[in-house]
């Protein structure tokens, strides 16, 4: 048989669209998406493997969530200081209270 090349989209291919209203995504939502990029397990994998993978994924989500929240808080501190230094203490206070 002559080898051939297949190129295409998976049969069940589907992009996902995530939207938010009146706000950006929070660390919890982004952590879920991030974990999906790091870890996936086939539906046909052995049940024990699936169970381990799902347990591992839950731990990863919590870890990512923690550090994302930490990053947000640190960035707000940076923005707060920048606004204060620029002479906008009320605006800075607003950012700090978010």
């Amino acid at each position, binding site marked *: 048989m002559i080898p051939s090349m297949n190129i295409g*989209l*998976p049969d069940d*291919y589907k*992009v996902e*669209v995530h*939207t938010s*209203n009146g706000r950006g995504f929070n660390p919890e939502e982004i952590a879920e*998406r991030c974990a999906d990029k790091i870890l996936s397990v086939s539906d046909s994998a052995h049940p024990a493997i699936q169970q381990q993978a799902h347990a591992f994924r839950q731990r990863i989500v919590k870890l990512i969530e923690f550090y994302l929240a930490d990053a947000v808080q640190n960035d707000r501190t940076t923005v707060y200081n920048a606004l204060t230094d620029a002479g906008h203490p009320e605006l800075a206070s607003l950012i700090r209270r978010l």
Partner: protein
Amino acid sequence: MAFNGNFMCTSFKKELLEAKHNFLASGGNTFRLALYTNSATFTAATTAYTSSNEISNTAGSAYVAKGVALTNVNPSASGTTALTDFADASYSSATFTARGALIFNDTASGDPSVLVLDFGADKSASNGTFTVVFPTADASNAIIRIA
């Protein structure tokens, strides 16, 4: 007419054999993701970007013509399958509705199309974030795979 499923454009397959597309993260072509209303009529026969039926902002200015530039992920191999991926595409402070998208090569002459993406339903954001999440970049799910 309306979106009728996901398609890899036939012209793109041909153009791959003509070396018109480069997906390298560094030094590769710029691919963009343009959003469309459900009036768009894309099929596998779609050959290039069009502004016809491209979405517009309901409010604000988050969306611009031709959409957002995608971040290329270096092509890789998994077993005997070669694949490539893009980083998820986000529009922030977005207020608009889209039913689907077209990925096209903004570097190549004529803005040749790559993929038609059907979101399955209208997706809306209001003063929020609109993110297109690409599938897992593995041999079974990556957005572009050569097996």
